[in-house]
């Protein structure tokens, strides 16, 4: 071993180096410790059989054991799964509607400044409107049924979707657009084949964030109740509140982030599959998407002829050119 090597091995080992790497196992262990600490604190402040012994009273905060004891009640009597799915369906429908309306508008606004100016007041209004104040108003327009919940999510999200799409499109470098133009693409092709695909990673990122937001908004719409039972997690919280069941409220509050986390992981897995240039990996979803795009293109080329002079290209012509190039490339350097 050389001197310099032994010096390296003697380098003082620091605790907590900035941006130092840790193994996956220690990362998981630390996270578990964090959860355990929270539960231990919860247990500590709510320990004791009678109210007077407890640091925090059972009405404000039931003990962990009491909370989880109501799980079966929540699961069977309150139909937790069905209500979770009801909530999810509303968010997904409302959010999809916002995406279907907002993304095309955002693409137009990001591509054409006049459209951006046209939509700017709407976006400003939509983003700054107090969402909670919107809930009662939507009853007047859309009643108290499913439609109201879905449209509330749509209204709450659509301005954000338009704004974020516009930003993502604007963030695509001008050099990509210039490249597309010098390769003969028209404006429509420049938007659909260059701007939109290159804006997708940024757009998907902000949509994932917005979906989390929408999941929070739906609680608002579900827990403000007029008329009959409408179902959903927000409604469960409301019902538990009325019956004075603190334990169930806490349990639902614990379940919601877990559901949100699982959805987020699913969306992230899709993101990883679609954008290997950002997240590494093989991009299995991108490969599928490209394949679909190819097949659509194949159908198109059955109906449209190439624009001149590229309509002259044939497989035979290419083979002939290949032979020609192969012949000259060896002595290509000694041309003169």
């Amino acid at each position, binding site marked *: 071993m050389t001197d310099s090597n032994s010096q390296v091995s003697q380098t003082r080992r620091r605790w907590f180096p900035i941006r130092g790497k840790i193994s996956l196992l220690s990362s998981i262990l630390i996270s578990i410790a964090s959860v355990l600490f929270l539960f231990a604190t919860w247990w500590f402040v709510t320990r004791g059989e009678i109210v007077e012994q407890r640091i925090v009273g059972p009405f404000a905060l039931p003990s962990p054991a009491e909370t989880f004891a109501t799980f079966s009640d929540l699961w069977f009597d309150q139909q937790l799964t069905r209500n979770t799915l009801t909530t999810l369906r509303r968010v997904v429908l409302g959010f999809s509607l916002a995406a279907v309306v907002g993304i095309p508008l955002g693409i137009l606004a990001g591509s054409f400044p006049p459209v951006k100016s046209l939509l700017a007041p709407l976006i400003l209004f939509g983003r700054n409107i107090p969402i909670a104040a919107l809930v009662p108003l939507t009853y007047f327009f859309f009643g108290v049924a499913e439609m109201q919940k879905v449209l509330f999510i749509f209204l709450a999200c659509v301005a954000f979707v338009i704004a974020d799409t516009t930003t993502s499109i604007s963030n695509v470098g001008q050099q990509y657009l210039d490249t597309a133009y*010098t390769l003969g*693409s*028209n404006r429509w092709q420049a938007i659909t084949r260059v701007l939109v695909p290159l804006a997708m990673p940024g757009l998907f990122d902000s949509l994932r964030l917005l979906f989390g937001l929408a999941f929070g908004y739906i609680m608002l719409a579900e827990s403000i109740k007029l008329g009959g039972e409408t179902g959903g997690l927000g409604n469960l919280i409301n019902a538990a509140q009325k019956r004075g069941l603190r334990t169930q409220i806490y349990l639902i509050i614990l379940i919601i982030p877990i559901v949100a986390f699982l959805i987020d992981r699913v969306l992230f897995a899709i993101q990883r599959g679609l*954008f290997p*240039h950002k997240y590494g990996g093989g991009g299995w979803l991108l490969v599928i998407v490209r394949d679909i795009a190819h097949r659509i293109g194949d159908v198109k080329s059955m109906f449209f002829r190439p624009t001149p002079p590229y309509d002259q290209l044939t497989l035979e012509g*290419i083979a002939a050119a290949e032979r020609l190039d192969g012949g000259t490339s060896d002595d*290509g*350097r000694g041309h*003169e």
Partner: protein
Amino acid sequence: MVEPPMTGEAMSDDPDAQPGNKPVVEFAGVSKSYNAGQTNEFTAIKDVTFTVHDKPGHGEFVGVLGPSGCGKSTILKLIAGLEPQHPPTTGTVSVHGRPVTGPGADRGMVFQDYTSFDHRTVLDNVTFGLECHGVSRKIREELGRHWIDQVGLNVATDQHKFPHELSGGMRQRVAIARSLILRPKVILMDEPFGALDPQTRLNMQDLLVKLWRNVEATVFFVTHSVEEAVYLGDRVYVLSASPGRLVHQVDVEPPHRPAALMQREEQFRDTVYHVNDLIAAEEAARVADSE
């Protein structure tokens, strides 16, 4: 082979202006200013006039040199017809006798920034232009594989890779193939090898010489490297400091030999020093002006 540098006035006596040699690219009194009439008015290039003729069976290779910010890229983008450089404030830019009205596939461009489309495989990147022109997949992929091979990439292993799996040099090979597959008559290169390491750069220079002999296009090559311009070019244009004017036009020896060999020869070094002096003089004139 260094000819005495010609001044702007003498440039109309172009030695290539013979019957049969049609002008490919023509600049007639071209100026480009931004924010005209405002306090932040900026003139990128001023009164640039030149003609590049088509040599039959052999396009011309023009290296464009000049101090930083002298409008070298502006000239390329005016030929390409890209906004906001296009249209010129005064004068006309013509390609094949017709004024440039906008970008088109007849004028290919390779940029310094890696502009590979990240969501497309190498093959899909190379065939992008053909796809835009509606060429069927069978034909364009066949031709795409041919060009992937031509730029020195491995068809079998590289065609289905995504750009992020490639090195900088390989990405620029893709960019060159993507442009050449359309058989442009004019190729515009804006410092394409600027971000590459020196050895890769020499390899890319040799590749370019080989390819250019085959495609017979007129090439405009903007670079900061005098060696690169003198090696690759048939002719080197030297621009003045901002606002850029075309002040020297130097005919240089065409690249007969590999870059690593030729760039070591004494005669080559002499030419490089000569061009270096011309640029240094322009830089000095600008400093004297501003004081």
